[in-house]
C-alpha cells in the first residue's frame, strides 16, 4: 500500500515592519506613542551601554564583554512585556533584556568588571544570574515555570539563548519537559547567525531553528528579530498562552550579531565585511526611528535628547561602578554555604595571614 503523509508542519515567519520602517497595518499591534518612545529610548541606552563596555574593556577596566549590538529589538521586544513577577533567565548576551527588566547599569558593569556583587540580583527582581555554560539556563527556566504552575500563580518564565544553544541537549530536554508538562515558559532564541565562529548554516541542517520546537509540539514561530513590532506581537501571544495555562512557546528571532562574539574575539577571521554591512542596513533602532519619524514623533531634537540621556545614564553608572569599595577576601568565603564550615574558616584565616605578610614585606621593601 502507498506511503501516507501522517504529519506535516509549517513555520510562520512574522515581519510587521520592513527595513524602511513601513508597517503592515493589519498586523500592527496597538502601541501608544509613549511606549514607542520608551522602547526607542531603551534601545539607545542599551547601545550606549554596549559601546561603553567595549571601550572600558579596551582600557582594562572590564574583563571579557559580550556585545548586544544588533539584537536590541529582540531583547527589548521580549523583556518589556514581562510583568515584574515573571522570571527572566539570561545568557551572557542579554545585557539589553536585563536593562529593560530594571537591573541597575552600575550592577551590570560590576559584573563585567569581574566583581561577584554584579550578580547579586536586587531584592524583588526576578531575573536569574548570567549563564555562561551554553544552554544551561534553558532547563532552569522550565523548572521555574513548573513551580509557577504548581503554585497556581499566573507567572511566566522567559529564557534567552542563541542558535548554537539549540545544538545542545539542555535545549531539547527543556523543550520536551515544557511540552509534556504544559509549562508557562517562553523560549527566546536570538538566532544571531553565529556561535563564535560557526555560522548558522554549519550549526544545524534544520531549515529553521523554530521547527525544532515543532518536534516537541511546542507552538513555534520565526520572527524578524530586528523588527520590534514582530517581536512584541509574537511575545504578547506567547505570554497570553502561558498565562492561560496553555503551555510553552518557542520564538526564533532572526537577527545578527554585528559585533565580535566578545571582546576576546576577532570576527574578521571568519566572516566578510560585506555580510556585516548588509545586516547593518537592517539595524533595529534605525528601523524604529524611520517608523516614528513617519508618525511624526521623531525629530532631530528628540534624537539629541535621547542620546544625551542614554549617555548620561551610562556615564553615571560608570562613576558609580568605579567608586564602589573593593571586595575583601572575606567575601570570597562568606557565601559558599549558609554557615561557614570550620575548614573554610581556617583557610580564610590562613589567606589573611598570608596577605598581611605580603603587605609587611612590601612595606619593608619600600623602606
Amino acid at each position, binding site marked *: 500500500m502507498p506511503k501516507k503523509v501522517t504529519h506535516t508542519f509549517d513555520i510562520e515567519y512574522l515581519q510587521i515592519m520592513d527595513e524602511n520602517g513601513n508597517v503592515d497595518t493589519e498586523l500592527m499591534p496597538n502601541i501608544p506613542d509613549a511606549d514607542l518612545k520608551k522602547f526607542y529610548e531603551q534601545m539607545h541606552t542599551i547601545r550606549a551601554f554596549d559601546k561603553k563596555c567595549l571601550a572600558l574593556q579596551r582600557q582594562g577596566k572590564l*574583563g*571579557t564583554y559580550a556585545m548586544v549590538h544588533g539584537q536590541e529589538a529582540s531583547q527589548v521586544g521580549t523583556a518589556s512585556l514581562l510583568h515584574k513577577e515573571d522570571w527572566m533567565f539570561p545568557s*551572557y548576551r542579554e545585557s539589553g533584556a536585563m536593562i529593560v527588566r530594571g537591573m541597575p547599569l552600575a550592577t551590570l558593569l560590576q559584573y563585567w*568588571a*569581574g*566583581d*561577584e556583587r*554584579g550578580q547579586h540580583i536586587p531584592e524583588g527582581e526576578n531575573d536569574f544570574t*548570567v549563564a*555562561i*555554560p*551554553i544552554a544551561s539556563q534553558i532547563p532552569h527556566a522550565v523548572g521555574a515555570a513548573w513551580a509557577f504552575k504548581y503554585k497556581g500563580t499566573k507567572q511566566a518564565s522567559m529564557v534567552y539563548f542563541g542558535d*548554537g*544553544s539549540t*545544538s*545542545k*541537549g*539542555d535545549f531539547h530536554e527543556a523543550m520536551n519537559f515544557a511540552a509534556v508538562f504544559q509549562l508557562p515558559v517562553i523560549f527566546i532564541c536570538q538566532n544571531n547567525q553565529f*556561535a*563564535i*565562529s*560557526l555560522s548558522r548554516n*554549519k*550549526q*544545524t541542517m534544520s531549515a529553521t531553528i523554530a521547527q525544532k520546537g515543532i518536534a516537541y509540539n511546542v507552538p513555534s514561530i520565526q520572527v524578524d528579530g530586528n523588527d520590534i513590532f514582530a517581536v512584541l506581537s509574537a511575545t504578547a501571544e506567547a505570554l497570553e498562552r502561558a498565562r492561560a495555562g496553555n503551555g510553552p512557546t518557542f520564538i526564533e528571532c532572526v537577527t545578527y550579531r554585528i559585533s565580535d562574539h566578545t571582546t*576576546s*574575539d576577532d570576527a574578521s*577571521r*571568519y566572516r566578510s565585511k560585506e555580510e556585516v554591512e548588509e545586516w547593518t542596513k537592517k539595524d533595529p533602532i534605525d528601523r524604529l526611528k524611520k517608523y516614528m519619524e513617519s508618525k511624526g514623533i521623531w525629530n532631530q531634537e528628540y534624537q539629541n535628547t535621547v542620546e544625551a540621556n542614554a549617555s548620561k545614564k551610562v556615564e553615571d553608572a560608570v562613576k558609580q561602578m568605579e567608586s564602589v569599595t*573593593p*571586595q575583601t*577576601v572575606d*567575601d*570570597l*568565603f562568606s557565601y*559558599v554555604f549558609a554557615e561557614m564550615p570550620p*575548614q*573554610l574558616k581556617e*583557610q*580564610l584565616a590562613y*589567606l589573611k595571614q*598570608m*596577605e598581611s*605578610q*605580603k603587605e609587611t*614585606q612590601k612595606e619593608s621593601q619600600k623602606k
Partner: protein
Amino acid sequence: MNMVQAINLTLKKELARDNSVILIGEDIGRNGGVFRVTDGLQKEFGEKRVVDTPLAELGIISIAFGMAVAGLKPVAEIQFGGFVYSGMDHIIDHISRIRNRTRGRFTCPMVIRTPYSAGIRALEHHSESMESIFVHTPGLKVVIPSSPYEAKGLLTSAIRDPDPVIFFEPSRVYRAIKEEVPEEDYTIPLGKANVAHEGSDITVISYGAMMKTVLQAFELLKSKYSIEVIDLRTLSPLDEDTIINSVKKTGRCVVVHEAPKTLGMGAEITALINEKAMLNLEAPVERVASFDIPVPFLQMETHYFPDINRVVAGIEKVMNF
C-alpha cells in the same frame, strides 16, 4: 616557542604522521581555536581532518568516543575546562571503562584537550582546576604539562597512547613561557615524573601552571635550602617511585597545586607518603593549594591560587618544623 605554538606543532606533526588522527571541537578550524592553538591546521589538513563541530560538548566527547572505538584517534578540544562537565556522563560511564568492560575487545585511544587554570581575567567557568575528578575516575590517564617542551613531548605520547587521555593545558602559561622546542619527533613517557631540580633537604611536588611559581620559589630559596623539585607531568597513573624515592632522601615534602585543597593531588600524595615513606619523614607533609571555594571572578582571582609567598611559606613551615 611558547606552549600554544608547541601544541600546534605537535598536532600538526601527528596529523601528518597518522591518518587516523582527527581534530574535533568548537571554533578550532577556520578560527584556529579561541586560544589559536589549532591555528592554520584546517587550512593545511582540510575540513575532514580538522573539524568545526556544532556547539555541543556532550556531542564532541561522546562522538569522539564512537570514533575512537571504530578505529580513529580523535583529539577533541573542549574550549574551556568548565565546559567539559556536560560530557562527564560519557567520560566516566563509557570512555574510561570500555577497555575493561569488553575485556580489551574495544579500546578508546582518544585525547580530550582542554585549558584550565585561573589568572587570565576570564569569565566564570573559564578558570577551574578540576583534574582530581578525572584522576578519581579509573581508566583515564590525566596529563598536565608545565612548559612548551613538556607539552610537545607529552601530547605526542598522549595521542599515541592506546588509552583515553585527559590533557589539561595551563592557559595561564600558554604564552608566558618561551623555550627551545625541537621541531623533530620526541616523546615524554606518560606516568613518569620529571625531577626538575635535584636536592636533599626538601621535596617540592607540583605540576602544570603552578610549576612556574614553584620554580620561582626555588630560585628564591636555592641558596638557603637544597630543594628537590618534582614536576608530576602525569597525575594518573602517578609516578609513585619518583615521589617515594625523593621523600625517602629528603624526609620533607610540600605539594603545590591550583585545584582546591580538599581531595586534591596533595591529599593523595600525602596518603601515599604515609603508606610508603612515613618513617622517613622529618615533618608533616604540607599542602599549598587553592581554597575550597569557587574560583573568584577576575578582580579577586589572584587571591585564590597559590602565589610565590604561599609556596615559600609552605617550604619554610616544613623546613622549620
